[in-house]
């Protein structure tokens, strides 16, 4: 083995070792960002931290007394708009157990 081959082999060994020291895989938690689009309309955008969209995923608007004010779904662009309900409520993006995200009405500006 000549010097160049030794060098290339060493480099390959080092590069091969890189994944051994890489960090652990992380989860991709859901998010739901809701803002007032205008004086009466709330616009919510949902998704996961890795960039995955949520078209067709359920989003509920629930009053503090746990009655459902609105049942809807995210559109193809992972957004949904609805008329802001009166009183106290929260928005629940529900993609399954452990994958839900609730937004309180106080945080919707």
């Amino acid at each position, binding site marked *: 083995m000549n010097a160049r081959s030794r060098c290339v082999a060493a480099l390959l060994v080092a590069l091969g070792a890189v994944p051994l020291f890489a960090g652990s895989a992380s989860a991709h938690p859901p998010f739901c960002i809701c803002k007032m689009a205008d004086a009466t309309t709330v616009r919510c955008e949902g998704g996961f*931290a890795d960039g995955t969209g949520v078209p067709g995923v359920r989003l509920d608007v629930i009053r503090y007394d*746990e009655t459902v004010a609105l049942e809807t779904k995210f559109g193809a662009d992972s957004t949904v708009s609805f008329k802001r309900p009166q009183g106290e409520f*929260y928005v629940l993006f529900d993609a399954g*157990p*452990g994958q839900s995200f609730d937004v309180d009405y106080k945080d919707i500006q």
Partner: protein
Amino acid sequence: MTTLASPSRGTSLWQRWRFHLSALVMIVPIAFTPAFFHENAFFDGRKGLGEREIGEIAVGPWSVRLAEFKVVEPDAEGRAGYAKEFALALCPACVDQVKAAYLRVGKPRNIRTMGALFSGTPYRQTAEMRIPDRTTADDVLWLTLEGWDGALHQATIPIRTASPVTAAWLARRRS
């Protein structure tokens, strides 16, 4: 008679140092080997449940051991905000009775908002719990266990107890 061209300065340096460079490339991974074996032992549980064990927590008729997976500040998760990872082990007697464990900041509003779901074996499972923007260092974590019979049992743990490093981080963000 032919004249040999003298090598350029770069070629000359390469010729002179390439052996040393190849040796260095071999040595660097060796220097990281102890850290690698430490991480390996940590991730497969031989170093304990997590880096900092919080203790045994009673949850209704059951109990769990809870730990901070790593003693680090919450991780930035892009648009999802910040999240903190915890590890949990079910008590040996309740392994067959508990279906799922959830953890969140603040009291769950209902069964659909119980928080991050722990995944893994009953003896060591982990969850990445979201830290909402409104969270303060005085807030409380709610741990919910769901039994196979549908029963729900809950316990609370102050953030300051569960993760002092997270409490300090929250206090710093608020100041």
